[in-house]
């Protein structure tokens, strides 16, 4: 069902429609042409020889007075049949050869693989020409030559696909369950390599068609009096100076036939490929219902009000981040915690103006170090952001450019933004590398990122953020890719940097404990919104939002009671495409009432240190609402 609808989708695209009509037309021509146009194509009429195009003979006639259009149509059949036969040979041969390494032993498999790679390096047409001398000129020889020359590319594809499926976890699971080898192949391997193979066979049908035309054109394929499109082109070429139609007719047909199969393959590949993204219309998102403003004080280094990040979706814009408001005081360490899809990383990117098109960021206020990031976007703001706002990302290996050495990668920051000479910037880079306690910084600066270990790379990324004078460090899951002991070192380093540079830190993490460990204040996000803003010390026992409480309870730590089942949260977070009208957490919340399902609670201040978006906040101690139910700001 699922895959059939995907196949259908392939034929609903414009390219799919056009290419399937073309292919169908070719097949119809191949079937009816010999009986319909065979007479004009084969009966000599020397009185009409070598005439140019006319109403009677649209493409003119050949040296024996035969109608060229008729001959082109009739030739299509032979071209198609031969292409189909050759593709059949290539596919069967390629599959057998490509699957062989999976069946034979390791050494034999490696040899076969090497052989496939060697033959793959040779252009198919070149192989076909040399095979033509072995198999002889003519129909049979050409089919064999082109068929065999097509084997390497199919074999290579089959080999790579088979190898990747054979190492998949589900095949390993089947092996452990004692599933027989032939069953593994029919159940798991074949169905999973079928789609790419079908695409590739369609494409090779097109290229086989062109290869026949080429071979016949140079006289190594079909021999007269037989004719296919290439042979017609060959016969037409000598007359090109006075009768171009004689060669352009077959040429155009070759192009159309080849393109039809290529386009069909493309259309199918696009519909089935993993990159298939439904095309959506871009639309600017409207601001959402007014949420609570943060307690904005003029001294904040970063202030965000009503931040929304929107992406075009198949049915209207999606807003994975909506109405987020918060502020960072100088030197303050704030965490954003949430599960995957909660919008925490996008919030970080939105704040730092790094959301790429087609994402659209809108906000009521977005100011950094006194500069309004919403309106200003000149070199001055770029320099300010480049030197005062540093970013640390999750995977330190992919965050560093593999093609540039560490030193120049760091030096770039001050060279571009402060016009520092190369030498001085490099010296600063070395100094910064030692500031993050990396050993032998001068030597390290001359190394490529892949020569460093994971923890060292993350230190280098942090050092990059220290090239200027950071006012805010945004760290997006900076320790998630690292080992526990390394994680604690990196958190330690962030803490030191914060103290030395007096920089504020915005730490984004899925790990409540990590956030709690480093931060003074924590923002909890759920389904794109901040649901609670509370002091880190209150996380463990004094969270007000039911989601925060559940999140903390569900993660075991070293004091969790082993005799009790872990707390769990039923259900799963809503997707940004189907957000409920009320509180997004209501369907999973044990305190939810009718109101929760219909009305979305605003982020409301309780006391001076806490904001909660909940109709039933679990306030335990002295935290009395500032003004219950009202929306400050």
């Amino acid at each position, binding site marked *: 069902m699922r895959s059939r609808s995907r196949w259908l989708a392939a034929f609903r695209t414009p390219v799919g429609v056009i290419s399937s009509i073309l292919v169908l037309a070719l097949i119809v021509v191949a079937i009816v042409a010999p009986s319909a146009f065979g007479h004009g194509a084969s009966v000599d009429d020397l009185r009409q020889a070598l005439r140019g195009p006319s109403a009677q003979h649209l493409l003119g006639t050949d040296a024996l007075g035969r109608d060229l259009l008729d001959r082109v149509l009739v030739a299509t059949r032979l071209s198609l049949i031969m292409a189909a036969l050759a593709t059949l040979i290539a596919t069967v041969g390629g599959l057998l050869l490509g699957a062989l390494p999976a069946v034979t032993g390791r050494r034999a498999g490696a040899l076969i693989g090497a052989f496939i790679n060697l033959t793959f390096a040779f252009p198919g047409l070149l192989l076909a020409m040399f095979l033509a001398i072995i198999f002889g000129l003519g129909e049979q020889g050409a089919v064999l030559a082109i068929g065999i020359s097509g084997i390497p590319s199919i074999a290579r594809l089959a080999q790579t696909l088979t190898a990747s499926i054979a190492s998949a976890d589900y095949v*390993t699971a089947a092996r452990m369950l*004692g599933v027989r080898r032939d069953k593994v192949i029919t159940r798991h391997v074949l169905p999973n390599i079928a789609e790419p193979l079908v695409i590739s066979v369609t494409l090779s049908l097109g290229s086989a068609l062109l290869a026949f035309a080429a071979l016949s054109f140079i006289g190594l394929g079909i021999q007269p009096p037989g004719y296919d499109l290439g042979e017609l082109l060959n016969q037409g070429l000598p007359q090109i100076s006075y009768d171009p139609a004689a060669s352009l007719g077959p040429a155009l047909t070759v192009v159309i036939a080849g393109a039809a199969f290529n386009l069909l393959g493309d259309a199918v590949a696009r519909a089935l490929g993993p990159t298939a993204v439904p095309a959506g219309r871009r639309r600017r998102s409207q601001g959402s219902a007014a949420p609570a403003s943060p307690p904005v004080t003029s001294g904040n280094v970063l202030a965000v009000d009503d931040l929304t990040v929107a992406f075009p979706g198949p049915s209207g814009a999606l807003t994975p981040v909506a109405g987020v408001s918060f502020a960072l005081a100088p030197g303050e360490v704030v965490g954003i915690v949430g599960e995957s899809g909660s919008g925490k990383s996008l919030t970080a990117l939105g704040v730092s103006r790094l959301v790429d098109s087609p994402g659209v960021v809108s906000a009521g206020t977005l100011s950094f170090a006194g500069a309004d990031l919403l309106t200003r976007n000149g070199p001055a703001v770029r320099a300010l952001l480049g030197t005062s706002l540093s970013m640390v990302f999750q995977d330190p290996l992919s965050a560093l450019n593999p093609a540039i050495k560490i030193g120049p990668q760091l030096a770039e920051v001050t060279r571009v933004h402060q016009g520092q000479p190369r030498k001085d910037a490099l010296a600063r880079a070395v100094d910064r590398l030692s500031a993050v306690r990396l*050993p032998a910084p001068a030597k390290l600066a001359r190394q490529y990122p892949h020569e460093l270990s994971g*923890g060292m790379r993350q230190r280098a990324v942090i050092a990059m953020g220290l090239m200027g004078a950071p006012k805010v460090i945004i760290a997006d899951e900076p320790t998630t890719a690292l080992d*526990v*002991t390394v994680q*604690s070192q990196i958190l330690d380093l962030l803490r030191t940097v914060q103290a030395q540079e007096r920089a504020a830190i915005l730490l984004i993490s899925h790990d409540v404990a990590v956030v*709690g460990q480093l931060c003074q204040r924590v923002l909890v996000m759920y389904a794109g919104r901040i649901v609670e803003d509370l002091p880190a*010390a209150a996380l463990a026992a004094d969270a007000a939002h039911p989601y925060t409480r559940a*999140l903390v309870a569900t993660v075991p730590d070293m004091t969790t009671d082993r005799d009790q089942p872990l707390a769990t949260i039923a259900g799963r977070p809503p997707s940004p495409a189907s957000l409920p009208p009320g509180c997004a957490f209501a369907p999973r919340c044990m305190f939810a009432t009718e109101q929760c399902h219909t009305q979305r609670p605003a982020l409301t201040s309780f006391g001076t240190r806490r904001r909660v978006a909940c109709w039933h906040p679990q306030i335990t101690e002295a935290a009395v609402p500032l003004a219950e139910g009202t929306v400050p700001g």
Partner: protein
Amino acid sequence: MTVTRVRIEGATVRYGTGRHAVTAVDCVDLDLQAGRCTGLVGESGSGKSTLARAVTGLTRLSGGQITVNGAPVRRPRRDVQLIFQDPYASLDPRRTVGQSVAEGLGPAAPRGRTARTDAIIRLLDQVSIEASTIGSYPSELSGGQRQRVALARALAAEPAVLVADEITSALDASVQGSILNLVRDLQRAWGFALLFISHNLAVVRYVSDTVTVMYCGQIVESGPTKEVLARPEHPYTRSLLQSIPSLSRLATEDLTDAASPVAIPAQVAVRTSQAATADPADPAAPPSGCRFHPRCAVGPLNRPDRTICLTSDPARDAASRRHHAACFFAAPEPGADAESPAHLGPARNS
């Protein structure tokens, strides 16, 4: 039902040959018992996943042996099952939930369409997956649901031994808890021996009866969970314990005094250029002697007189194995000893 016993004796797994050989698992001894959960913790390169594959027969041993009830494990067998880390890769995207679970049903399973469907539904029920999901494809399920289906498929083989390799690390926090509960319930109901592997000590602590700590291919400490975690003897175990961020500790400790548990003293960084990196040791180039010594707070880094750590490997030295810890200077009770590693750690002057 016979009481299953898995014995891992001197298990060694080596990849590659000659100078490029990497010993991923080095002479590991471990026992698994029916109805017991053995937790295995370690960082990247510790060899824990390689050991898991060796126990399931997917990886061949270069030395030592692994037996299940006396019979050596040489190839995959139905009574030893593995649950993978990534539930998105362990289910065939083109087969329905029912088809995937059916794959686990063995020759002893009932014949006939309805009988098999009933068996599948019973298995799905065991992992709290609704019967209506039987025709769904993995792409329609959440990560947690997929992991449940993978569990059901393994249960279908009625395993005597279940190896769970980082089964919650790809899941969200709110899902992890329910999978951990499920694994514990299943073990109680089915009575298989469970080898539970994770980098997360808190998770291992929650499910395991005994805990084994691996470092760079070797077991450095092993024992009942409560004892090992309450009184860790190996400095590496202690550093692991201290590295775990914890909310409950937060309430009692002052943040600014939190010391880094692994030795990264600046003054050492000047002398030994590698100390400050303090990343886990690379099994392709294991340090000499005790493999933890370049990072050890009680080792030669801070105590230059302890040269034995540079020359002898405590994991291979039976005499050093006091209290299940492969350390020449295993401290039974940190805190009681004034020279215990906790105090020798990198005193951050702040």
